Each structure stands twice: as C-alpha cells, then as structure tokens.
C-alpha cells in the first residue's frame, strides 16, 4: 500500500498540463463552433483559418513593419514615462510640502481617461508617431509616479534619520536609503506601465491611424478581412503576454536581493 505509484499527471492536476489542455480546449471550441454552425463563419472563422491568416501575415513585410512601429512607440513612450515618473516621484516624494501640494492635482489628473487626449493628439501631431507617444506617455507616467510615491513614503524614518545624523549627503541618502526602499515599487510601476503602454500604443494606432498593428487591425476590419483581423488581435494578445512575462522575470532578476523576492519559494 505504501509503494508510491507514479501519479497520473492529469489526475493529480499538474498545472502546466492542465493549462495546455485549457488552451487546446479554447482552440478546439473556436475551430468547431463555426464549423458546426454555432456561430456564423463570417464573424468567427475557425481557428485553423485564423492560424493560416497568421502565417500569411508573418510572410508579409508590411506586418513586420507594423509590428516594429508598435514596439518602437511602446519602448520610447515607456522610457520617457519611466524616467519622468521616477524623477518626479523622487522629488515630490522626498519633499513633504511638495507632496501635500501635488496630492490633489495628481488625484485629479490621474483618472482622466487618456483617450480624452485623442482629439488633441490628432490636432497636434496628425497621424504621426507623436500622437501615439503623447497617449502612451500620459497613461504610463501616472502608473510609475504613483508607485514611486508609495515607495518613497515607505522609507523607514529611523533609517533616514540615522543616515542624516551620520551626515550622509543628500545624494548619498537618496542613493543608499531612499532608492533601495523605493526600488520594488518602481519595478511594480514599470511592470504596470509596460502593459498600459502597449494598450495605449495599439489604441492610438487603431483610433487615430498612426502606423502600427492597431492601424492594421482597423484596415483589416474595414476591408472585411476577418481572419486577418483575428490573426492580428491574437498577435496583440501574444505581445501582451510576452511583455508581462518579460517584466515579471526582469523584476525577479533585478530584485533577487530583496526580501519580497528572496522570501518567495521558487516554484
């Protein structure tokens, strides 16, 4: 009775296998539903047709240009937002008066939906990269800023006072006390901003028509190329998953010394 039997992976619930089964199930449903007439094939083509369109797209140079356009807008916008957010957050967070003065303004500006800026972006930059960048930067800036503010507020006052009484210079205090405490928050902010930046980059392209994947989706939609449209939507989803994974792994690598990561049991 005590001899260990090799556990049946599905029965015992191996998460990876179950996950693959879930994905396969989704593909199967999308393949079968249009084939047996559950949904109209013109609205939802079978998974194999979408996959075919995806392969077609991948062999098309225009697709890769659009993909790189989107990624460039994402990367530049995110970089600007992160640098601006971190700098502003450190300055505002470490000066109490500034913090009190700006709190209401931050709270007011943050929930303004970034899409409200679309008409403004169109007027200012037309359908260029600039209008995508404006939206991406605005939306992701707040994610970073708010996290940095939380991070700076989390600094141990005793440690800070100690550094002060040891006559650490202002720079050294920021470098050795403030920055290490705030860093995990900064990374959370960057991770959140990375996904928001992708959403806004593709939204701007979709609505404004600046070059990129979003514009390709709009074009496919207006020319009734339904499988292509689905293929592109799948690409944006994969991009989103990749960016999420990348941000999480990067966070874990760079914060390997930090309690929040060290304390986690590696799975």
């Amino acid at each position: 009775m005590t001899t260990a039997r090799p556990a049946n992976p599905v029965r015992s619930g191996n998460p990876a296998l179950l996950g693959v089964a879930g994905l396969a199930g989704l593909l199967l449903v999308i393949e079968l539903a249009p084939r047996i007439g559950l949904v109209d094939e013109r609205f939802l083509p079978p998974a194999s047709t979408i996959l075919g369109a995806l392969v077609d797209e991948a062999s098309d140079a225009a697709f890769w240009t659009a993909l790189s356009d989107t990624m460039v807008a994402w990367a530049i916008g995110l970089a600007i937002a992160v640098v601006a957010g971190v700098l502003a957050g450190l300055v505002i967070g470490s000066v109490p008066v500034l913090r009190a003065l700006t709190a209401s303004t931050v709270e007011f500006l943050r929930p303004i939906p970034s899409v409200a800026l679309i008409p403004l972006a169109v007027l200012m930059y037309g359908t260029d990269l600039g209008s995508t960048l404006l939206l991406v930067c605005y939306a992701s800036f707040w994610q970073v800023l708010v996290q940095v503010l939380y991070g700076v507020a989390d600094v141990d006052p005793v440690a800070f006072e100690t550094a002060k009484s040891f006559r650490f210079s202002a720079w050294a205090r920021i470098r050795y006390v403030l920055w290490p405490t705030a860093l995990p928050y900064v990374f959370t902010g960057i991770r959140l901003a990375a996904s928001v930046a992708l959403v806004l980059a593709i939204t701007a392209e979709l609505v404004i028509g600046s070059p990129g994947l979003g514009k390709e989706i709009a074009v496919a939609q207006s020319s009734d190329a339904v499988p292509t449209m689905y293929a592109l939507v799948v690409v944006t989803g994969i991009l989103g998953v990749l960016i999420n994974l990348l941000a999480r792994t990067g966070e874990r690598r760079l914060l390997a010394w930090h309690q929040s990561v060290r304390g986690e049991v590696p799975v």
Partner: protein
Amino acid sequence: MVTIAKRVGLAVALPLVLFVGWYVFSAGSTNFYAPPLSKILTAFGDTWQTERLKADVLPSLLRLFAGYLLAALIGIGLGVAIGLNRRLRATMEPVLEFFRAIPPPVLVPVIMLFAGIGNGMKVTVIVFGCIWPILLNTVEGVRAVDSVVLDTARSYGVNGPARLTHVVLPSASPQIAAGLRQALSIAIILMVISEMFAASNGLGFTIVQFQRSFAIPEMWSGIILLGLLGFMLSLLFRLAERRVLRWYEGLRAAQRAG
C-alpha cells in the same frame, strides 16, 4: 480647525495656481488650437446644457454602468467558481492570462462584427474589456482565503451559501475591490473608444465631431468634461470602497500600529 484649513489650503493651492496660470497665459493666445481658457469656459457653459447632457452624456453613462455592472457580476461569479476549484483554475489560467493581455480596444472591431454598431455592441465591448481584471483578482482573492478559517467554518458546519457570503467573499473583497477599480478606468476608456468608432451620440462621438469640424473650444470643453467625469467616478468608487471595506482598513491600521 487650523489643520483642516491648512489641509484644504494645500489641496487647493496647486490646482488654483495651475488654473490661474492657464487662464492668464492663454488669455492672449492667438494659437488656433490652444484657445484662451476664458473661451473654453464659455464654450463649456454653452455646450453642455440640459439638452446635450440628456442626448449625449446620459446614454454614455448608461452604457458605462450597464457594461460595468454586468462585467462585475460575471467576473465575480466566474472568479469565485474558478478560485474555489484548483483544477479548473489550472486549466483556465493561461487562457485567462491571454485574454487579459489583449488590449481591450482591439475588441471594438471584433465585437462590431457580431453586434453591429448599436448599444449592444458598446455594452458588450465594455463587458469584455473590464471583466478580466475583476475575474483574475477575484480568483486570486478567493485563492488566498485563509485555509484555517475555511476549515474552522467547515467544522462549525458553515457550508454552502453561508460559507460563500460569510467567509469567502468578505475575505476576498479587498482583492475584488482592486480589480473593480482597475476595471472602472478600462470601462471609461472603452466607452469613449466605442463611441469614437461608430455612434450617433455619446461623449466620445461628440468630442470627435467637434475636433473634425474644428470647433476647438468646444472640443477642449469636452476633454475637460471627460476629465471631470473620470475624476468623479473614481471619487465615488473610493467612497463606496471605503464604506464597504471599512473593517479591512481598520484591520490594517491595527496591524500597522501593533
């Protein structure tokens, strides 16, 4: 008294400076695209009157609330089911992660295929966009319910619906609230975008209309209105959240002090 006055003063000072600054510096503006603030304010008063509010703002808000409520109901319901069942969770996780990663606005053209361009489409888009953060946060929250508490409840014979409403949901509610908050901003974004795409009324539609007809002060007033709307909705949400989660805030404060 003094501290309250000071706090109000601090909260109002910068917005006031920014407002006055904008007013003064834009007063002599001859830039067509950046009209003086006084002009924008006049346009605001002229544009957003009862009739327009009824014809454009109200439909937008109704779609927003309908979509948001539906997403909350479906998201929390499915989330509890998936969170309580380990095998179901392992099966669904990659699929859910994938759907969450799709930028919600690209669903607008997809859902337009199925639902045309009517109200149904807009509500569906909102539901499909904001369901994911609610769903995933509920799953996480339900998963994190203290197993000791669960076992205790079970040994006291607290089962079925009572277990759900008295043990699982309260314990998961801070996480659920976090998901609902994320979903709120997505809902506003989707409301505007679905109206920019195809609509005959609504805030998003009207603002784009103004922009296309170069009614710049009116367009600015629309942007400001959207901003105020976003701000007010997040304020309302925070009030409601504070009310519902008061016990949790108290718990956290006690833990911090202890």
